[in-house]
């Protein structure tokens, strides 16, 4: 039981770490895009970010990986963009909950200024 349990816990921890790294990379990429005022600056930033991730690609020790992830997350939090780009309709965006479509049963007739009382 103990060896199977050890393998299972190792795999569980490993997959959790992989997920954290994927999420961190995704957020880091978006943050690089937020900081970049031109596209070519983003390409450079994304490439640097990728290199930093690749540098620790072959680390095997689980505790070491955990420590690396924590350091990276702390760094991400510290240098995160204060005013990130949000797609307008997404939560927090400028169009979020604005101008919702009317209820389906309601009929609005726009007569474009040609209302009856103006005849």
């Amino acid at each position, binding site marked *: 039981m103990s060896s199977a349990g050890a393998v299972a816990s190792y795999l569980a921890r490993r997959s959790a770490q*992989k*997920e954290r*790294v*994927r*999420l961190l*990379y*995704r*957020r880091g*990429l*978006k943050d690089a895009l937020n900081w970049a005022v031109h596209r070519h600056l983003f390409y450079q930033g*994304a490439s640097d970010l*990728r290199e930093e*991730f690749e540098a620790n690609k072959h680390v095997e020790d689980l505790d070491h990986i955990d420590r690396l992830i924590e350091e990276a997350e702390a760094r991400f939090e510290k240098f995160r963009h204060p005013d990130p780009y*949000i*797609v*307008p*309709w*997404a939560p927090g965006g400028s*169009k979020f909950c604005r*101008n*919702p*479509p*009317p209820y389906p049963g309601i009929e*609005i*007739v*726009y*007569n*474009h*200024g*040609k*209302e*009856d009382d*103006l*005849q």
Partner: protein
Amino acid sequence: MAAMRNAVLRHLRVKVGYPFPAPAGTVSFADILRRYFSQDATASFLDKSEVLDRVITVVKSFQKVDPSKVTPTAHFQKDLELDSLDTVEVVMAFEEEFGFEIPDNEADKIDSIKAAVDFIASHPQAK
């Protein structure tokens, strides 16, 4: 300011009549067509074949992908030999191509072209 306004208004003639032709009593079909709302509010779903075409174009133009291997059922890591970070980049490329935002937990699940097409085609804001 008021004196200036008066001076201007004294020489100005504003037509009081109603400039449009008298409206017909009924609402024409053209009026119904003209009745649209904000593009974002009345978002619609994209056609699945169109989504597939655009997804395949995006994946093919990805640097590390061999374009000849891209098929509608290809898995990013098994068939296209990308690693997990490349997959993250591809998903971000989808977000930019379709101009919408994928939540982090959903983005993690997109691991093949089929999954991407299904998600994008079922998302009302993708355009």
